[in-house]
């Protein structure tokens, strides 16, 4: 008899297990919450569209050598500035006869590299500063938050420009400069989260067991801050792309002959009157990718942050 009562449960489909109103374990509850969010997210066509583009971008970046029709650096001066479609250049060729499509494909690696580096580093810096300030409080809190405010008060792009010129132009330095200018909001978020958590009962309980501040922050506070940081990062990614492209455009980001999109626009600018495609194609690429990030971020916010939901 007892077997009978168990059987129907085992036959639960994955969908049913995930959407159950009565989760059997904490793990199931958490996974189930994620799954519901995913269902809500999936019903948002614009957000799904964004996600699709980004998955495609990652795929393109991963398999760039297989997908690109040519090397991004091979020059053919005889076929310079070929219009799209002519001579096998699907999106045309640039001033040195390099295939623009291939350069865009390889350039996606640079874009993804910059975005992921910044998206990893800036929130981590913010997390360190914010949780330390929030949990430890006192003078440390005041000092750290004052510093945060100072950085927050700076015009971002100009600060990044100044940093890059101090450090020297290049991708790594562009990443560093963007990180240095974009961590403060994360610090604020992390601090706010920490303040709400730090007086929770379970933290007191852990304290009584003799856990130190470091252990509490890293083991118990950090995990709880992650989700709000993730939302914020997703929303910021389009901005990161645009800043990086702007630096490249001004000649302070990736250096030639690297196929960075912003630098490609800058190079194509010289030929814009007669050879529109050289500058237009990378511009479209930047636009599409940053739009995708924005759509994804907008959708994620609707799902994960119901308070600010726009529906």
């Amino acid at each position, binding site marked *: 008899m007892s077997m009978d009562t168990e059987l129907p449960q085992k036959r639960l489909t994955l969908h049913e297990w995930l959407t159950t109103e009565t989760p059997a374990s904490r793990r199931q509850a958490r996974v189930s919450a994620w799954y519901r969010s995913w269902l809500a997210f999936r019903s948002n066509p614009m957000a799904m569209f964004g996600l699709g583009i980004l998955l495609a971008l990652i795929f393109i970046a991963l398999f760039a050598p297989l997908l690109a029709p040519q090397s991004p650096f091979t020059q053919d001066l005889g076929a310079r500035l070929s219009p799209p479609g002519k001579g096998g250049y699907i999106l045309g060729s640039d001033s040195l006869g390099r295939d623009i499509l291939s350069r865009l494909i390889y350039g996606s690696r640079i874009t993804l590299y910059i975005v992921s580096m910044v998206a990893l580093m800036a929130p981590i810096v913010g997390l360190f500063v914010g949780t330390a300030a929030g949990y430890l409080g006192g003078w440390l809190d005041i000092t750290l938050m*004052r*510093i945060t*405010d*100072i*950085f*927050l*008060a*700076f*015009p*971002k*792009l*100009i*600060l990044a*420009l*100044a*940093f890059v*010129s*101090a450090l*020297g132009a290049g991708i790594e330095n562009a990443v560093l400069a963007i990180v240095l200018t974009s961590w403060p909001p994360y610090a604020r978020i992390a601090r706010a989260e920490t303040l709400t958590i730090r007086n929770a009962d379970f933290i007191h309980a852990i304290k009584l067991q003799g856990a130190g501040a470091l252990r509490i922050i890293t083991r118990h506070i950090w995990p709880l801050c992650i989700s709000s940081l993730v939302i914020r990062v997703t929303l910021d990614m*389009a*901005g990161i792309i*645009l800043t990086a*492209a*702007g630096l490249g*455009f*001004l*000649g*302070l980001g990736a250096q030639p002959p690297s196929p960075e999109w*912003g630098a490609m*626009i800058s190079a194509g*600018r010289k030929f*814009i*009157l007669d050879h*529109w495609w050289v*500058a*237009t194609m*990378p*511009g479209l690429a*930047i*636009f599409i990718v*940053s*739009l995708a*990030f*924005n*759509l994804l971020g*907008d959708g994620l916010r609707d799902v994960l942050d119901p308070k*600010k939901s*726009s*529906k």
Partner: protein
Amino acid sequence: MVTQNTTGKGWLKLSIPSWISGCGSVIFTVLITMVGLLFVTFIIGRVMPIDPVLSIVGESASRATYEAAYQELGLDKPLLVQFFIFLRDIAQGNFGESLLTARPVSQDLLRVFPATMELATMGTIVGVLLGVPLGVIAAVKRGSWIDHIARVVALVGYSMPVFWIGLIGLLILYGKLGWVGGPGRLDIFYVDIIPRVTGMILVDSLLAGDMVVFRNAISHIVLPAGLLAYYSLAYISRMTRSFMLEQLDQEYIITARVKGLSESAVIWRHAFGNVKVPLVTVIALSYAALLEGSVLTETIFSWPGIGSYITTALLSADMNAVLGGTVVVGLVFVCLNIFSDLLYKFFDPRAR
């Protein structure tokens, strides 16, 4: 700073002591932030891989000339002392001399800043005029097609690389169609015929009563300001919408509706009346963002403002100019931030 109270329940209620203490702490915050900002700028200037002495005396200078200039710049003193000298100079409006223009940076900044301000102001005005109504309508007609369109408009605005769309816009609207003026603030032959009063050509030409120049200036500013306006519109319309949504859910709105007030009175007088204050702070922030956004816009449109001043200086390693420009934009930024903070503190009941 504190403008007239439009919300009906305002700052008059504030008890005087808290107002004063609030002011004191605000001034303290401002000072700390500004000094911090100057310190960061100072450090950037010091870690620059460029030898400031060499750029003054030239490569062929003798050891003695070099040493003299080194001491004159105070580079032999401790870093902190140098910082105080830097602060003192800035307090006196002395940013040093620009290598590129061979003029005092402060003089250069006075020349270029009005151009940027003109651009950002026009952009903000248009952004507000379009963005606020769009946000209100999107909130009122939540979920309708107009709401969706507003959302798409905003997202596209957030995603557009300004230097690219500016280039394309210039090519099509000026190059192909001739609908707008070209790069620069005026057709070149109108340059310098209007006496300079504020440095903002739109204002100066009106003051001089010269409509020809005014129209020419408008035709030049339309495109760059329009682009900046699009950004500001995207931001302002989204924020307006969310503020309005919050208000429209409140009970007093329902009460007003029940009382039989007309829909437009409910929306504009009651709901919108209450979002004005946060909206002003949003506008202040977006204005600050436009000042910064001008860096790339100005490059495209050959607009002789502070953005192109800083970038040109950067590319030619003209450190005094870079630092001076950064400090000025930073200070304006801080002021706008603090202004919006203050507004919020004084008017928002929750923050008080």
